[in-house]
């Protein structure tokens, strides 16, 4: 198992290298001009100089190698400098956003808490809600609980988040006035009162995404439980005289979790990038919103860095899913 993990981690390096190359190529092919948003009064020769200053005059492979150096050597060294206070980085060039001229990673670090709070919380909530619903729905198949559960999850799955988001805003912000419709990122939690304000502004975006996530995961959980409830070993467990909750929560659940854990783990990276629309609806300036504005402004370093971080997360959580799979299922042996 340990060797397997090491081997898979090492294999991830060439994978990620090719992903970064593909991303770079793709972004290079994309139309658009990083100076397009600058005032029209700038003369063309000055505009050209700005382009050259951004490094666009260099050939493709030089630009790619520079990005690699900046991202994999200069950024970690800078982080080390920040953490230890000892100067490791010197005057090494960091990855700089073309929009704001500030280091890309600094902006990502600023935006990360909002995304983790709202989108991460909704994923955790969604999972916590989905698992028991899936289990009970399967165990009491075709009961009223199951009927309502499958109906709600079908609705949650098929109605897009920009619709549920706006619907919630209309009901709870406009008509009832319970929650704010805009997420205030400058709000700082200092005491109970401000914590309540924070929770209030989190509720709606979290609910919208939690409904969507819960819908997906509960369907997987239900299907997986149904698959296992009819297995012969369940009858054996009952014939041993075990209580129903032991049969269900020990014997059936352990088997049912095997595919569901994979789905949950692989879904985590979407937390960081996938909630773009919901972040727009509630004006949460998280990572999704950052990516959208960067794409609109042709901010290539920002887009390249963000998409590459998403790629790293996807590879990482795939690996994690595989390892969890091996832990849950003894038949899967990685040697």
């Amino acid at each position: 198992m340990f060797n397997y993990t090491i081997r898979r981690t090492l294999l991830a390096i060439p994978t990620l290298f090719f992903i970064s190359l593909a991303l770079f190529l793709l972004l290079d092919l994309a139309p658009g001009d990083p100076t397009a948003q600058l005032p029209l009064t700038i003369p063309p020769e000055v505009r050209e100089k700005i382009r050259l200053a951004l490094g666009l005059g260099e050939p493709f492979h030089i630009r790619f190698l520079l990005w690699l150096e900046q991202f994999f050597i200069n950024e970690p060294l800078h982080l080390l400098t920040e953490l230890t206070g000892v100067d490791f980085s010197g005057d090494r060039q960091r990855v700089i956003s073309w929009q704001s001229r500030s280091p890309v990673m600094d902006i990502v670090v600023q935006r990360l808490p909002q995304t983790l709070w709202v989108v991460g919380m909704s994923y955790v909530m969604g999972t916590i809600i989905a698992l028991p619903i899936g289990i009970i729905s399967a165990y009491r198949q075709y009961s009223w609980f199951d009927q309502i559960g499958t109906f709600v999850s079908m609705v949650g799955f098929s109605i897009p988040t920009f619709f549920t988001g706006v619907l919630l805003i209309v009901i709870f912000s406009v008509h009832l006035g319970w929650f704010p419709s805009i997420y205030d990122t400058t709000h700082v939690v200092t005491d109970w009162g401000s914590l309540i304000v924070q929770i209030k502004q989190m509720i709606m975006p979290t609910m919208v995404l939690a409904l969507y996530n819960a819908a997906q995961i509960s369907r997987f959980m239900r299907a997986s439980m149904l698959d296992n409830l009819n297995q012969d070993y369940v009858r054996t467990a009952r014939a041993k005289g075990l209580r129903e909750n032991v049969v269900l929560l020990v014997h059936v659940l352990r088997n049912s979790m095997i595919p569901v854990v994979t789905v949950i783990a692989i879904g985590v990276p979407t937390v960081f990038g996938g909630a773009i629309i919901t972040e727009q609806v509630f004006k949460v300036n998280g990572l999704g919103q950052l990516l959208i504005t960067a794409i609109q402004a042709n901010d290539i370093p920002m887009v390249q860095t963000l998409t590459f971080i998403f790629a790293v997360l996807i590879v990482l959580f795939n690996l994690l899913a595989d390892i969890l799979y091996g832990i849950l299922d003894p038949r899967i042996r990685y040697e």
Partner: protein
Amino acid sequence: MSEDISPVLSVKDLKVVFSTRKGEVHAVNTINFDLNSGELLGVVGESGSGKSVTMMSLLSLLPSPPAKINGGTVSFEGKDLLKMNQKEIRKIRGGKIGFIFQDPMTSLNPVFSVGFQIMEPLKKHMGLTGRKAQDRALELLELVGIPDPKKRFKDYPHQFSGGMRQRVMIAIALTCNPKLLIADEPTTALDVTIQAQILELVRDLRKKLGMAIIWITHDLGVIAGIATRVIVMYAGQIVEQANVDELFANPQHPYTQALIETIPAVRGERTKRLNSIRGQAPTTLIEPHFCSFHPRCDFAFNKCTSINPQLIEQRKNHLVACHLFEDKEVAVG
């Protein structure tokens, strides 16, 4: 029938129906039988004849719905198993009555070690934990003939062969010294040599532990080798019941006779085609008021289509449900 000893298990008028979209299927129709201590009762019949359903319903192991027990009593140690609540019946399952199932490949939980699965009923019924439970589990693995039990204890089911898994299943069924072991086609999924080994093991265990066994199978050869008494089932009813020697020497019911004729002869002329019983086993959508076997029976007459024959003692300890023998019964007395 059993004047001298009181039976371990006594089933009276058991009826089981399944609700399906086409209506109620009468899977078990008024079954009566007794099981004496130390006896090995063989239950034979085609697929769908209600053998397994009967035995599963004894311990309320059938999923309900669709299954419904429609009356009858099952007395075990003086109590009616069908009237017990969930908590009481759980004490019987795995404690007093052990179960072995058909397919050892799927009957064990793939994600738990064999040791864990054997220790579960020990904890539940005998309150054994830790070291004591482990010792008893190792003892059981030894008893069912698993070599090197200490080493195999932590292994998972997929690391065992089919025969070895069935031995593990038997060990699980025997954990709490049951009074009765119900074996539901335990050798059907195994090849012939392994089948012989398992039969030998069960014969051995019965001698050592002295429990009663119900052995469900559709293989008459297995029955001949292991059973003391045999019940032949057809369409949810018992059609014949006799001691094993008597049954094979003097099969009375046309169905039993036909069944015995289907056994291929190992010796003798090879030119003969395999015998089969013509027609199909019926689905029992209506509660039969006729003999269920009459469409396939060579001796059927008018009465067979209108009256369901009752199980009557035709010779000593030999019961048959067939209109052909009703006159003889009067003669024998």
